[in-house]
């Protein structure tokens, strides 16, 4: 297997508050290799985006990386500060945000936004950057790119703007893309197009993708492997097909069971009892234990084993095929 583009080891993000230290990301480890799409899935507040922000060095204080390591192309980046980290952002890590309507500066032409990004990171002339800007827009499927570079963001539809955002994230040819809910704000009909585009571009360039979403459908469609997060911890990590058809962590199992399937014709959707604990009230032992139907004594005292490779962070992983 190729050396991973991104390697996260035991990453812990802490937010000190008056009521103690919160850990929105708690001991998470995973790798992403070039050309691979790793889906990060979980409920709101499970720490998905926080992990992404930690990687690109955009945690908003007082949140900070308290423990663990982040390796990018064999170099450790979690300790880089200010200027050194800025050079990596955009150049080696691209980011796509959730809402294309607010991600673009409304007062600058999209061509100028592309050009300034390229000129910041690449040793090319202004004329060359302009040429590449048009090429980048063509690549993401903007019709009439040569004319549209001079348009302002408000002259594009939401889907087109997300294409522009993707072009911006990719224009300095980063080796890793962090896509934070890239399709959530879009029309359902546009979602599939954008995902297909992201997938194609990253395959072609061998870019690693960290795809953060709460939408299992998007994961099933686009990702190669999936990491399921729960209360800041990794619940399960494995190839998409395995995790979807044969989840081993009871939380993943509950999550899959609550996804409506047209083929199954369920009368009532499965529901996991309770709610994800607030960050200031994560229970001892396995974070999922109060809601787990298979809970045993051990789960209440010892945190689940760390999920790494193809594994579930569970003392008593399920062995079943019942969801297939």
């Amino acid at each position, binding site marked *: 297997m190729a050396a991973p583009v991104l390697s996260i080891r035991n990453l812990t993000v802490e937010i000190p508050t008056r009521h103690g230290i919160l850990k929105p990301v708690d001991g998470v480890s995973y790798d992403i290799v070039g050309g691979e799409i790793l889906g990060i899935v979980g409920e709101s507040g499970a720490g998905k985006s926080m992990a992404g922000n930690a990687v690109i060095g955009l945690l908003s204080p007082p949140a900070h990386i308290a423990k663990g390591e982040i390796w990018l192309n064999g170099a450790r980046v979690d300790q880089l500060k200010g200027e050194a980290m800025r050079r990596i952002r955009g150049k080696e890590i691209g980011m796509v945000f959730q809402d294309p309507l607010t991600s673009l500066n409304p*007062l600058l032409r999209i061509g100028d936004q592309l050009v300034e990004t390229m000129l910041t990171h690449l040793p090319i002339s202004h004329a060359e950057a302009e040429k590449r800007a048009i090429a980048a827009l063509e690549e993401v499927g903007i019709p009439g790119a040569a004319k549209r570079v001079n348009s302002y963001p408000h002259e594009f539809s939401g889907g087109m703007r997300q294409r522009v955002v993707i072009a911006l994230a990719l224009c300095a040819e980063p080796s890793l893309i962090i896509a934070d809910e890239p399709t959530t704000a879009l029309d359902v009909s546009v979602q599939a197009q954008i995902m297909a585009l992201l997938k194609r571009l990253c395959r072609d360039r061998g870019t690693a993708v960290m795809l953060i979403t709460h939408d299992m459908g998007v994961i099933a469609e686009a990702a190669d492997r999936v990491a399921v997060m729960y209360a800041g911890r990794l619940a399960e990590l494995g190839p998409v097909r395995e995790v979807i058809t044969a989840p081993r962590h009871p939380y993943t199992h509950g999550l899959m069971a609550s996804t409506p399937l047209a083929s199954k014709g369920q009368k009532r959707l499965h529901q996991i009892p309770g709610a994800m604990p607030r960050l200031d009230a994560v229970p001892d032992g396995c974070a999922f234990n109060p809601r787990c139907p298979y809970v045993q004594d051990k789960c209440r005292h010892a945190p689940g084993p760390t999920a790494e490779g193809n594994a579930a962070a569970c003392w008593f992983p399920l062995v079943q095929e019942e969801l297939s």
Partner: protein
Amino acid sequence: MLAYIIRRMAQSALVLLIVGLVAFAMFHFVGDPIDNMLGQERTADDIERLRKQLGLDRPFVVQYFKFLENAVQGNFGMSYRQGRPVIDILLERAPATLELAAVSGILAIVFGIALGVFTAIKRKGFAANAIMSVSLIGVSLPTFLIGILLIYLFSVELGWLPSFGRGNVVDLGGWSTGFLTTSGLKALILPSITLGLYQMTLIMRLVRSEMLEVLRQDYIRFARARGLRDRNVHFRHALKNTMVPVITVIGLQLGSIIAFAIITETVFQWPGVGLLFINAIQFVDIPVMAAYLMLISVMFVGINLIVDILYFFIDPRLRVDRTGGH
């Protein structure tokens, strides 16, 4: 764009017509001008003759249009007190006020924006907090008090700067300027600080709060995520967006700098139109008051027109919305 400008100009003209009506009405509300013009020794014939001569026997509307007609041609009549054409007096005084207002305005804008950006970017720094605290003084102390304090400190105690007047001025074809002599420049310092301080702190606090708001926006996060340099993020991405609402306020404030000049000019005995206006009020010199009113409103309206046009250059979204297509 042209249609938009024409529409705005029509609105401006309407505003000026209404202000003109108010200015004209002053003549009628503040006593009979004939009384003021003829002395104690007058006959009924004199009154009648002067009334006819001045056209004051004609209907109100006719008089109003006559007033407008004259005003457009720069003819505001004779000053009751000085017995000279008002327009001559105004033109003679205007350079002093305009120079003072220009210097104050530039000071207010340059320092207001610079300090606003600084305090927004270094929000938690000691210097930023110190500036914010000091700026409270600028907002809360009345202009005349600041002027008097400055005079006390720099003229009376330290003796560095003159406490009144314009110093030596140079006449450039009817425009008397204080920019070309040392004493003229020195005389400008205290009044322009006094006049501009309030606007500066206002602009600074506004820029700061708008900028903090803009810095929280997604497109700033995205700009950072693309690894753009801080300078670029702050001054190209953030400041431009900050300026959209700030420009409106700056425009209005520039207008009020000219209006507020009355107080500063009084404190520093600055020979501008503001001081002229104050003296005109004391002597019920209605033509001067009316002309001053018109002059100020023309400036206000003009500045607002410029601000509206500036929007076009800053915010591309307006170009589409207002003109319907591009």
